[in-house]
């Protein structure tokens, strides 16, 4: 077993697992509602127990997802309060991210070396912060649509049409982004294929660390914190569980991506 570096805390891993499960559930139940006029959508709806049941699942899991988001927000604020808002370990965007992106684009077209990335690359930060605009839009519009009569007492009824469009468009954007781009960058690109288990184990092999995040490796070395993950190897049972979980999630995601793209090809952002 190669030496590893600790990258994600247990709460990071738990939040990601919670988000992964709730997001996939919302994607399946939401896409079933959008495509229920097609043979694929109606079959999916039937398999999940019918329209009423699917709507209930979508609602309950949506509430859970919202709470998970709020708890994560609170947890992050507490942690940031302790460890500081800025600095190389921070998830906040900085000008350095823009410079890294520029350097990497030059590298992609063969005009120089790759960017020396820190703990969080610019695309990982974007993945993280995208949730922070997506979740409020989906939660507010979702609650408006689920409680339409009550909502119409505070906003005009026609704004429910706009809420529906926002909910649908944001969900489609999130699905295509997560299943297409996030999965590709996390697990499908050549250096990560077939799966990058860091988010499940919390550890990153040192060899990967030096290649992918040289700036972070250097910083850890200067602080004497390198290799703080030890050399413990994950148990075979844990390896099997996380591999199956990860591969299943990616497979479901890619399957849903195909149907999302087909739906958008036919309907655009209309419902």
């Amino acid at each position, binding site marked *: 077993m190669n030496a590893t570096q600790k990258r994600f805390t247990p709460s990071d891993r738990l939040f990601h697992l919670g988000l992964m499960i709730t997001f996939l559930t919302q994607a399946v139940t939401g896409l079933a*509602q959008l495509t*229920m*006029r097609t043979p694929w959508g109606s079959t999916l709806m039937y398999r999940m127990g019918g*329209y009423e049941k699917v709507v209930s699942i979508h609602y309950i899991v949506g509430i859970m997802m919202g709470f998970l988001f709020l708890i994560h927000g609170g947890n992050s604020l507490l942690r940031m309060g302790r460890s500081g808002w800025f600095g190389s370990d921070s998830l906040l965007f900085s000008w350095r991210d823009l410079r890294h*992106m520029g350097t*990497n*684009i030059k*590298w*992609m*077209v063969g005009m120089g070396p790759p960017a020396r990335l820190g703990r969080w690359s610019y*695309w990982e930060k*974007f993945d993280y912060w*995208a949730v922070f605009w997506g979740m409020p839009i989906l939660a507010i519009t979702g609650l408006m649509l689920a409680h*339409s*009569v*009550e909502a*119409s*007492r*505070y*906003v*005009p*009824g*026609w*704004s*429910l*049409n*706009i809420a*529906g*469009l*926002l909910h649908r*468009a*944001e969900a*489609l*954007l999130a699905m*295509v*982004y997560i299943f*297409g*781009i996030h999965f*590709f*960058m996390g697990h*499908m*690109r*050549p*250096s990560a*294929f077939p799966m990058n288990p860091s988010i499940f184990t919390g550890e990153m*092999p040192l*060899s*990967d660390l030096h*290649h992918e995040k040289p700036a972070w490796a250097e910083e850890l070395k200067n602080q004497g914190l390198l290799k703080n993950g030890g050399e413990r190897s994950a148990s075979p049972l844990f390896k099997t569980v996380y591999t199956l979980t990860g591969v299943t999630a990616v497979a479901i995601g890619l399957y849903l991506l195909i149907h999302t793209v087909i739906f958008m090809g036919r309907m*655009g*952002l*209309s*419902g």
Partner: protein
Amino acid sequence: MNRGVRVFFAVIGGVLLIFGEALGARVGGEEVVEASRRYRYYELSRGFYESHEMRPMGQGEGQPKGMKTGMYHRSRLADAHQGILFYAGRRCEACHPDNAASKHGVRGNLTCRQCHGSEPIAGIAHYYSPMNPIRRHAYVCARCHEGAGASFATYRIHEPIPGSMEAKQSFPSLHYTHRFMLGLLLGVLGLFSLHALMLGLRELFSIRRPHP
């Protein structure tokens, strides 16, 4: 004013329209005279509306006498399908294909007549029609959506396609929201899919380390 500025003001205006009114009404506490609010609190299901209504001048009940321009709208007739040949043998969606795909039809499994009523189907703007916006919430919506007010009835169940010119004319806030979301979607996906593709190709042609 160029197009970008106009779109910006339209979006800001839309946001203010949605939230400004509710906020203003609650904070200011003044009487709100907009129709959908005026009826909200005290006309949910009273079932008496005649005192608020005016008959069109010079017209008998339900008679298509025509407007000043010499045209008349079927939406104002007591029998909206009056005079249509072979009407009895036709299905609604034969003439109203777009309306058949509403969420009520697709998700609620409702038929047209469950909301629009039985023959003769009055035009939605006819002054005694249950669909007339003045009483639609109580006579139609509230039958399923308990507690529906006039504001609720302004929901467009036969929503125009958001990206269409029809939506731009009849529901501009929906149209510009669609434009904004489409721009966001194309921008985010365009930028990051190109980035992912280039990064993937670059890694493929210069694998920096062996597979784990």
